[in-house]
């Protein structure tokens, strides 16, 4: 079976590269085809890479506290570019200061991210969630974009429905 491609990178003007390398090694070992864009990645670069590689998910890291500004409009841009169903994950030190994580999580979910992780997340758990989410969204045997890539009717004609979809699909708050 073909591996699922996922796109990885540190967003914005953030140069923290150590965690990024660890994530690459970890998710590769977990059986993903990791497309690592490294540090200082723009939204457009994430999306370009996801289109060419037919990625199932984009994993955004942000360590320097400006994640909220950098991630603004990410889901909208994905939709604009035709990535109707891609999973968006984000994790790291997402905001400056000591904001409770629940508030941070809510903020990023509102922006259209499917999962939001604190800096101390157990990677093993994140990988399990990712596999589960891919299965749910793309079906159990979704190796090729021909099976799922054709945007389904409602997705295309009603982007609003898709935009809010991550939240409705999300069981937890």
């Amino acid at each position, binding site marked *: 079976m*073909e591996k699922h491609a996922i796109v990885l990178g540190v967003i914005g003007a953030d140069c923290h590269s150590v965690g990024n390398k660890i994530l690459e090694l970890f998710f590769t070992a977990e059986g993903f085809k990791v497309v690592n864009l490294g540090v200082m990645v723009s939204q457009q670069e994430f999306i370009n890479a996801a289109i060419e*590689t037919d990625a199932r998910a984009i994993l955004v890291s942000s360590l320097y506290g400006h994640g909220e500004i950098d991630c603004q409009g990410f889901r909208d841009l994905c939709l604009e570019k035709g990535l109707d169903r891609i999973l968006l994950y984000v994790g790291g030190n997402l905001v400056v200061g000591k904001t409770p994580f629940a508030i941070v999580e809510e903020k990023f979910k509102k922006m259209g991210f499917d999962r939001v992780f604190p800096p101390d997340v157990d990677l093993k758990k994140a990988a399990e969630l990712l596999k589960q989410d891919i299965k749910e969204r793309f079906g159990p045997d979704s190796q090729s974009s021909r099976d799922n890539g054709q945007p389904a009717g409602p997705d295309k004609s009603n982007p609003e429905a898709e935009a809010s979809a991550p939240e409705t699909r999300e069981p937890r708050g």
Partner: protein
Amino acid sequence: MKKIISIDIGSTWTKCGLFVLAASGLKLERRLAVPTTQDNLVRGFSQALSGLLGKDVNTPLKELVGAAEIYFSSSAKGGLRIAAIGLVPDLTLQLARLAAMSAGGKVIASFAFSLTRSDLQTLEKLQPDILLFSGGTDGGNSRYILENARKLAGSALSCPVVYAGNRAVAEEVADLMNKKEVIVTENLMPELGQVNLEPVREKIREIFLKRIVNGRGLSEIVELSGSQPRPTPLAVFELISVIPGYQPEWSDLAAIDIGGATTDFYSNTESYLETDTVVLKGLREPKVKRTVEGDLGMRVSARSLLDSGWPYLEERLRELGPGAEELKNYVEKISRDLDYLPRSEEECLFDRLLAETCVYHAALRHAGGWKETYTPQGRVYVQTGKDLRRVRAVIGSGGFLSAADSAGVMRFPLQKLKACGQERKLLPEQAHFYADRQYLFSLLGNLVEKYPSEAAALAVASLEKLNDEE
């Protein structure tokens, strides 16, 4: 001692050189140019050969070809016209364009994402010589590719299609387009960011041979001379590629060839050096790169040069004195009379300014840049495109630059370019400038396949170093 002849069949002139290969290396014995006989190339070719060999003009080609080894190139009416299709503009489409240009072609149209009906109409109207069809990494996107393949299959396009996209659907693409001539080759971007242009270039070259050899008597030349033609820009590209390997002191070089219709820019230098403070964004460009600009040229493209290059020209006119109207009138004159040579001091200055403008814009489009960014970790430069800072030799070729008497015509616009805009342009920092005085680069390029070290040695030996007069 072996006699070797190299011939470059251009659109107006057929240039040729007789070389002698001895133990000491390759030497130029004689060179000349005769008018190209477009209707039947054999006549011009025979004339060139008899001239070089000192034989009677009426000697049949059959007798002439026995006297020397013959290699030749053809500019194919300004190069192969290639249309490029990619997926994302900054990724596979950019590579498709680069591959087409470094194979000696010129990109006449390019399309990203899904082809629209008007895109298809444009393609049908343009009727390119080759359609280069790419998109998706191996195992990556197939949706756009298959959709485009279906659309292309239903189009009235008759040219060969080189498919260099997602390998996973290559067979399907070929099946969908089974009414067309589809040549499948390796993906030009098998993994994200991995650049693989060589297989595409090879396929384009093969098609060039097949297409160009048909008609105008070239097949007779091929048969009698026993050698295949190559596209002229590819010959130069190959020469630029091999020089550093045989002439290590010429390890980082660039060449600018300004013609009547196009300006070619070649570079052979590492495109990005990784450091803590420089982050590369976008593709890592190949070490040997050619770009060709169809709107920059001294005669056929003089009008479009005036449009593209007006801000630069205007600034130079202000510095030097002559009026804008005079320059515009001159451009009108040379656009009507393509063989016109300047007659007055002012006209010479105008030609020089046009050449400077070609250098300026060709370099602008070829070279990358650095943008300064402040991050919480300190100052960082974000690099896009190719770094030409380490280039130590810039070679001028083509009618105007071959005859240049000073480095200024190249150095000056490059200096201006460095100072323009917020982004720092990654242009040569400590380069010397040279002229391909005898216009040997395309001729020697033809010999690279068989005699790489000899051709490289003569190429650098034939260059004349240019000094600054100003």
